[in-house]
């Protein structure tokens, strides 16, 4: 069976965006192709005439520390992420999140850019990148631009950039400073699709006393788009991470998320029950790491 008619393997970003722009019919980008190809096969994605495989573009495979930022190419695979020492230092939650995805066969080909551009409200890679205040680099034939990651999601599977002409090529997030740490966790259901019932990533910066100077928290599915819990973050900032602030944070978080019942996956009540569990695990762990 041939799943598409034309298979492009550009070597550069410029070529890739040209390949997208001049596609005669429908076009899709793959890197690992783990999601897209099976969506096409199962009729969950419209037929695609041209597939642009971006996994050979070396610029998109880089992981680098640049001044105060870490650059993470969109075609970096989950396998590379979990075995990269730079990311182990600077992006603990991303490494943790990506380590939980699939088996080695999937991790070997599935990329971080693929996870993000799938735009699921609970992508493990996406949620963990959000906690690092990540920006995304988007290329088109008009050039490249940086945008906050949180802004590219328009709804489940939908993005605010133009998939026909634009391409996610990389990410950047602040390098880890002193007294900073991050963590990721999720709860799965043993039956049904391997998407988290609820996942969460947290990043904290402690002050000299060990109180939380700054915090970022993301979770999903907590609405149609990947979610940053700004109100909860605001509350936690400046507090010590103790029982009282945890309890109040739970209350605020429960209030600001929009959890719902999804058939054969989870009830709204259950997801609410998991919120404090994950909040505690994730922030406890992030705080511990910040102390190291």
């Amino acid at each position, binding site marked *: *069976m041939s799943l598409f008619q034309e298979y492009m393997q550009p070597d550069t970003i410029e070529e890739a965006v040209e390949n997208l722009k001049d596609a005669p019919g429908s076009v899709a980008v793959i890197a690992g192709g783990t999601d897209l190809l099976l969506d096409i096969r199962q009729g969950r994605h419209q037929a695609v005439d041209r597939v642009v495989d971006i996994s050979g573009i070396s610029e998109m495979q880089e992981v680098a520390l640049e001044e105060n930022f870490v650059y993470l190419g969109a075609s970096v695979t989950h396998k590379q992420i979990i075995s990269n020492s730079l990311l182990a230092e600077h992006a603990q939650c991303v490494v943790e999140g990506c380590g939980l995805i699939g088996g080695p066969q999937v991790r070997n080909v599935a990329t971080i850019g693929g996870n993000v551009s799938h735009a699921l409200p609970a992508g493990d890679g996406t949620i963990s990148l959000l906690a690092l205040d990540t920006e995304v680099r988007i290329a088109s034939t008009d050039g490249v631009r940086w945008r906050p990651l949180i802004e590219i999601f328009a709804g489940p599977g939908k993005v605010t950039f133009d998939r026909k002409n634009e391409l996610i090529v990389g990410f950047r997030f602040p390098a880890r400073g002193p007294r900073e740490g991050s963590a990721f966790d999720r709860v799965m259901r043993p039956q049904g699709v391997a998407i988290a019932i609820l996942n969460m990533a947290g990043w904290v910066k402690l002050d000299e006393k060990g109180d939380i100077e700054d915090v970022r928290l993301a979770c999903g599915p907590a609405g149609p788009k990947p979610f940053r819990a700004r109100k909860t973050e605001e509350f936690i900032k400046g507090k010590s991470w103790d029982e009282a602030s945890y309890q109040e944070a739970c209350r605020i978080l429960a209030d600001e998320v929009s959890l719902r019942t999804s058939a054969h996956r989870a009830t709204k009540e259950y997801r609410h029950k998991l919120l404090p569990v994950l909040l505690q695990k994730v922030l406890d762990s992030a705080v511990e790491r910040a102390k190291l």
Partner: protein
Amino acid sequence: MKSLTFWVNDKKQTLEVEAGEMLADVLRYRLGLTGTKISCGESECGVCTVLVEGEPVLSCNYPALKAAGKHVTTIEGLAQGEKLHPLQEAFIKNGAVQCGFCTPGQIITAAALLSSKADPTDQDIEYALNDTLCRCGTYPAIVNAIHAASDKINHNKPIEFPTYDFVGGLEVVGQVVARPEARQKVTGAAVYTDDITFPDMLFGATLRAGIPHGRLIKLDCSKAKKLPGIRAVFTAADIPGRVNHGLIIQDWPALVGVGEKVRYVGDAVAIVAADTPEIAQKALALIDVEYEPLPVVTDPVEAKAEDAPLVHEEGNLLKHIKVNRGDITLGFEQAEIIFEDTYYTPAYEHAFMEPECSIARPVDNGGVEIYVGSQIAYADRDQVAAALGLPQEKVRVRGPLVGGGFGGKEDIAGQIHAALLAQATGKPVKVLYDRQESMLVHPKRHATQIRVKLGLKRDGTLTAAQTELYGDTGAYASLGAKVMGRATTHSTGPYIVPNVKIDCYAMYTNNPPSGAFRGFGAFQAAFAIECLMDKVAEELKLDPVELRRMNALRKGSITNTGQHLTESVGLLECINQTQAEMLKFTGGEDPFLSREVNGEPGKRRSWGFAVTFKNTGLGEGAPDNATAEIELLKDGSVEIRISSAEIGQGLVTVLQMITAQELGLPLDKVNVYLSDTDLTPDGGPTTGSRQTYISGNAARYAAGTLKNAMLDTLAEKLNLSPEEIGFKDGVIQANDQKLSFAEVGELMRAEGRKTRLKYEYVSPKTTPLGEKGDKHFAYSFAAQAIEVEVDLVTGEVRAVRAVGATDVGKAINPLGLQGQVEGGLIMGIGHALTEEFIVENGEIFTDSLSRYRMPSIKHVPEDIKVIIVEDPTAEGPYGGKGVGEISTMPVPPAIVNAVYNACGIRLNRIPIDQDWLALEIEKAAR
């Protein structure tokens, strides 16, 4: 087409491929490297794993052109000539090969692990093989095999067979031996149906109803017929013979005709044959079809209502099955306490790793030859012949290896369609299902609702049991009446109950058909009775093991159908040994207390217990026979031929061992040839845990017949009495003379004696329900204890440790037995924790492996103790009885009982819904 150059197993390959072709397709269909299997097509199962530049990837979703310039390693590239890779040898010797369909993927994934981590821990293995699925459940053996291979590679430690405490007794039977077909399975040489190809072969595809109930009012194939590359478009009107098929009742149309009804989403309305699979699919889209929708009934209880929509004109009741013993009113009057509850089990999907494939090709005599991995070759032959309007001898069914069955390959899938298209086109036609079509089409495990009412004395003695069962048999009968019959007789458990009343209703609905599935109704029944027994024990303040022990069937007991058990009732032994082992784990402490998990106050552990029994063979009056043919070949080897299926359970091994044992031959002098309706006599269906017993006996007596013929020849020739002639190690010792089998064969042929003989084994007579006499000729028994861990906050449940004892009569093939029991346990864990086939209003929700999750290596308990009890049955081969199904059955109730013991919440249904459980735990704490 594009040119692709890459290296496969160090050999440079340049070939033309389509832009959108996947690597697996190129390897299999263009390069003929069929060791790489395709199972799910959705990156879920890992079966298609190959190495690209040393890294494991899923070749079914890896564009072939992406491999340009790269080095690909497939299973065929692992061995060095004849010398197996240590992993391959270790997989064989550790019993990590059953049906073999996932084996290449497992070995390749393991090879990548060993090259990055020479001495992996159990955790490393679990992490690496997390997404490489095995439905046979060989995971424990795989872990052992990987360690053994690692020891061989790193420390040159020889790879040995494992040792078991239930080994021995005879020279061959009871010894640990490798599967004869294992070498092919670990090297990728093993041939399954889709690995076969013929010149000019066409590809069939099937248009499915897509709606659960409706009348077909329009079917216009004219556009499809005009598509270039289409060779045939076939509808019900074109069927030359009988339209309906079915193993017992022929109510299932091979194709639904205009004016007729579709009764479930998977009903076929048209079939096409084309030059390529793509063209076949395109043609289906061009068929214009219209239905008049009809009201849908999807619940077996609702299906029984007076005003329910009718699935079949004769009514929705397939069968009302009854069992009455003693006086139920009196029984409940004698009771001092009465318990009653209702239990629910869902439909389950077999999810055998090999999706269905049939190839039919016209042969010179005007008939057809069919290649299919089926559990019942002769039934396929008869049903295909009826559809084609051919005499049965014009249809030959040949069975390549089968990548798992579990009951799901008993009914017709694509056999008739392939044959019709081959007949119409005069060419070979392959009908291969992808995973979604497989899940759509074949019968599932019956969803049931089972009400159990028990009356007891306060000391725990059962006085009465009344059960009412509803089974959802779906749109067609399949084996529904038989399955629910077994649910009926097993619904009061393996207990002595003097007064019994059972009513069971097997109901048609517009759901996918239900049929045979490991445990065959007895699985569902075991869940209900064993959950209620635990509740009874608690209320009566009795130990749950003791309650079972006091009521357990034993030698001399009478079953609920009035059968007097005179021998081979090893249940008490199973209970005692399981309890003893469980207590070893707890250090003598009460295993059913809820215990905190060290350092994790939010988690609790406890054990749960369940017992069960399962008939061997068809029973209840069905003739249960097998004929084996045996031939002494000129080279002195012996071939045993029988039409029964090797579906991973180890039948080839068992038949080889039995034949070798009887003739005093080395194993490698016995060849087993299965499933060929022209060349092998009928061994009956591969179902009902019957093959070791029935076909095993046929092989045993066939071998005995050959031995007698050889003895007669020699006794006459040498003027000796047969007692003076010995058979040992392939040598015949007569007085001082030593003869080989080849020499004796020569003598026989010279005298015009037959060296090819048949034996028909006829099993002990059984009688239908309601008639006097035994319902079954043997029963196996089992006890299972499982420790679970419950997360009190998230409701997550995992099986931590498992101890189980099974009475198998005699362990004939210990390596296979260990694997089958472990695999059954793992499937039971899946049924309790991960699996549920969900149908909503007749539409299938769980239409892929990503939505239907079978257990993976991470669901395997940390400790598994397999105990084998051998309480022989006189008529069985060496005392053996069935074991294929029983090990799955007690697992879900043991887990559910353990969950209650751990957290205080009782479940009446499986699989366990962690969401519901977590909220119940919270409610109870308030």
